[in-house]
């Protein structure tokens, strides 16, 4: 088990290293650096000004060296101006001129400086991950029970009318990407001129102008049913269909097992068979899928957070990419790798505990 864990962590490190280097190389292409200089110091700068800005801010060194600086295996760049002021990577990060020439990268715990948000990357990422954590928690609270109920109900009697109806619903929801469902929800539920809100307002069923808010910015301070429903629903529905399909497949398989037939021949009631004998065995597969679904949900988080302007991790990733915020993008990639591999790890370990056959062998 220990060896397995070590191997997994080693894999995680190698993946993160490769991914961050690719991101680093892509964000440091000359055209991208020019964009960065222009967003930082004036969009209408001349080429000479861009070159001088890049040089003064440590972007002039070779790519590999700067990647080493970010990792913390190479000393940060230092530059002394004519008037004696010392600038440098570590001077900015540590806020003291004495730090010039030290190493200050990932290994030293310095995640760098976000050019888009003008703050330490570590602070930005922590704050934004917190916001996304809340969103994901609500997504899982909505998605998991809904998916399991739909899947179990559909899988109980394969081919029945309930099965066909619920399966159609599940397929439809998983086939609708977030950028479609999100827009549809806004049009249907969050507009005072179209959809059902004007009707409800006319009947006096809702106090405000709209049923739900099509903008989740206020959820940053205070999460309410009104401002959080649509983003949560948008992400949850997409993941829900997939998990429900897997649960259904697993359930139908269990329902054809010999021991279920035996129980039924012995006269055990249908509800008792489902609840006591089938359910637990049928939930092993969905558990793995739910864990593997979490990294997929990160996709949905990017789309949904941007659509509803909710400043979480996905929104930050988008902003960092659009503004070529190099160190923030790198940190986001590290976080994404960690999320993917940690959920995989949990699903592997959890599987061992849920499935006695693997545990005993």
């Amino acid at each position: 088990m220990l060896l397995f864990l070590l191997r997994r962590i080693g894999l995680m490190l190698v993946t993160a290293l490769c991914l961050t280097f690719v991101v680093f190389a892509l964000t440091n292409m000359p055209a991208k650096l020019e964009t960065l200089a222009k967003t930082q110091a004036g969009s209408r700068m001349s080429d000479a000004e861009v070159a001088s800005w890049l040089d003064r801010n440590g972007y002039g060194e070779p790519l590999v060296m700067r990647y080493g600086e970010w990792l913390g295996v190479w000393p940060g760049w230092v530059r002394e101006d004519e008037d004696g002021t010392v600038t440098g990577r570590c001077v900015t990060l540590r806020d003291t001129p004495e730090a010039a020439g030290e190493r200050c990268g990932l290994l030293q715990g310095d995640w760098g400086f976000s050019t888009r948000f003008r703050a330490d990357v570590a602070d930005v990422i922590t704050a934004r991950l917190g916001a996304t954590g809340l969103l994901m928690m609500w997504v899982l609270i909505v998605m998991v029970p809904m998916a399991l109920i739909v899947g179990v109900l559909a899988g109980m009697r394969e081919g029945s009318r309930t099965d066909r109806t619920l399966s159609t619903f599940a397929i439809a929801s998983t086939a609708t990407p977030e950028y479609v469902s999100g827009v549809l929800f806004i049009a249907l539920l969050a507009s005072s001129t179209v959809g059902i809100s004007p009707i409800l307002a006319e009947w006096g069923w809702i106090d405000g102008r709209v049923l739900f808010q099509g903008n989740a910015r206020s959820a940053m301070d205070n999460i309410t049913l009104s401002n959080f429903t649509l983003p949560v629903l948008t992400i949850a529905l997409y993941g829900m269909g997939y998990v429900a399909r897997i649960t259904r497949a697993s359930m139908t398989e269990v329902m054809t097992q010999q021991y279920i037939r035996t129980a039924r021949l012995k006269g055990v009631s249908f509800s008792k068979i489902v609840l006591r004998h089938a359910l637990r065995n049928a939930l092993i597969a969905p558990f793995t899928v739910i864990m593997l679904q979490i990294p997929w949900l990160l996709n949905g988080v990017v789309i949904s957070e941007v659509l509803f302007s909710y400043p979480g991790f996905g929104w930050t990733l988008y902003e960092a990419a659009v503004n070529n915020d190099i160190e923030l993008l790198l940190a986001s990639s590290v976080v994404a790798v960690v999320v993917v591999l940690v959920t995989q790890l949990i699903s592997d370990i959890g599987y061992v505990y849920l499935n006695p056959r693997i545990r005993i062998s």
Partner: protein
Amino acid sequence: MKDLHAKREAVRHPVAEMYAREHAARKLDRREFLTRATALGLAVPAAYGLLGLAAPEASAQEPQMGGTLRMQMAIKAQRDPRTWDWSELANACRGWLEYLVDYQRDGSLQPVLLESWEASDDATTYTLHVRPGVTWNNGDAFTASDVAHNIERWCDASVEGNSMASRMGSLMEDDALRDGAVEVVDDLTVRLNLSSPDIALIVSMADYPAAIVHPSFTGDDPVANPIGTGPYLPVSYDPGIGAVVERNTDHTWWNEGNGAYLDRIEFIDLGTDPASWIAAAEAGEIDLNYQAQGDIIDIFDAIGYPRSEAVTAATIAVRFNQDNEPYDNKDVRLALQKAVNNAIVLELGYNDLGTVAENHHVCPIHPEYAELPPIESDASAAMARLEEAGHAETEFELISIDEPWQAETCDAVAAQMRDAGINISRTILPGATFWNDWTKYPFSATEWNMRPLGVQVLNLAYRTGGPWNETAFSNEEFDSLLDEANGIADADARSEVMARIETIMQEEGVLIQPYWRSIFRNAAENVHGAEMHPTFVVDYVKYWKS
């Protein structure tokens, strides 16, 4: 304007009196008169006095104190004010960083940190009178040396992206302030000695990068160390998310009682997709937007956020870069120009929300505008001319940014060229990459914000080697005429030179400039004083809510 009533005497100025006569003779409309007369140093009531009119009262309603205003506006990472390249950067800071003068919605200049100024008749010497009794919010007194310090900062062209340097040319030498250009006469008087006449100097000081900073300001973030003269202070500032500004209770503002009505202003950055602004308005989370365009204006109207309009000299320049083939050939430029009917571009590309322009980048609302014979488009003549130039088969490419109104305008331009039989393709670039090369594209469209005087954009964009010269236009006669115009205070006289300048622009086929844009803002009905401003100024110090 109310604050000025008691204090001002009508300081007479020979040129201003001539403007008044011109106005009487209906040569000038009121807006032109105000811009010109106030640029020469007349205070607004005095300028109105010359017209034989009383200055209008600030507003019929008495502003109410208190309340929180929530406004949709992009919040970008801050930096040194003189390097600001977006009005939004300035707008967020207007509560504590004030200006020497303000450009008003009606086209006049209002003194702020200056009490008044005078120009010599040839516009080569300016005397600035600093407003007495102004203090910084750290307790220091605001004096003439603070003004001199800021002018010196503006003149430092060695700072990357310092766009004020391009406006202060007549005070500069070797990329820095010229010795003797600024004299501090006494605590409240500054004299400026210009190397060449510049009628735009005072107007330039109302431009958004000209915010007045404290002598201790060295860093690049005016929010982190918010020493200013205004009545507000920043509470938070998060790029991409929003900013909060609250009234500064520890500071006595010089203009107490004539502004600073709101307790708190929240700017909310909702990204660039107008659909999320609408969603936020529907949810009741914003009171007004920053700027609405196209269909979005109507949608906001429909959900109870009526529009306000500002007529501007803002425009889109569909320009050729003469450093690139085949646009170095004048006949090609003129042929392409000839194929385009500007009125149709306005209708298709901008929903008719503006006025037709004449391909010379001087607007009828500019004081020195000279009317030229109308330009006519002619598709067959255009094609014939192109054939003559040997470019009948050439494939042209018109580049635009992905912003809808700009893309649609270029589509309308390209469609007309196609109708004339010209082989043209369209390329749309995302905003993040478009601005990297905006001065170098062979044939592309650029958005230009307005400047109060006609000579200002010409100086920036069409003079040989001008900092923002994206057309690579270089014409000796044009340059010398522009120098001449820069020194003529008399409107009619300048207009005559301007007529020649405009004609050169047209004859040389420098650009297709289809229309002047009106700009719009939608605000809830209980928001007052927040009408759209022609230069996108969000002077929230004057806003109030009922």
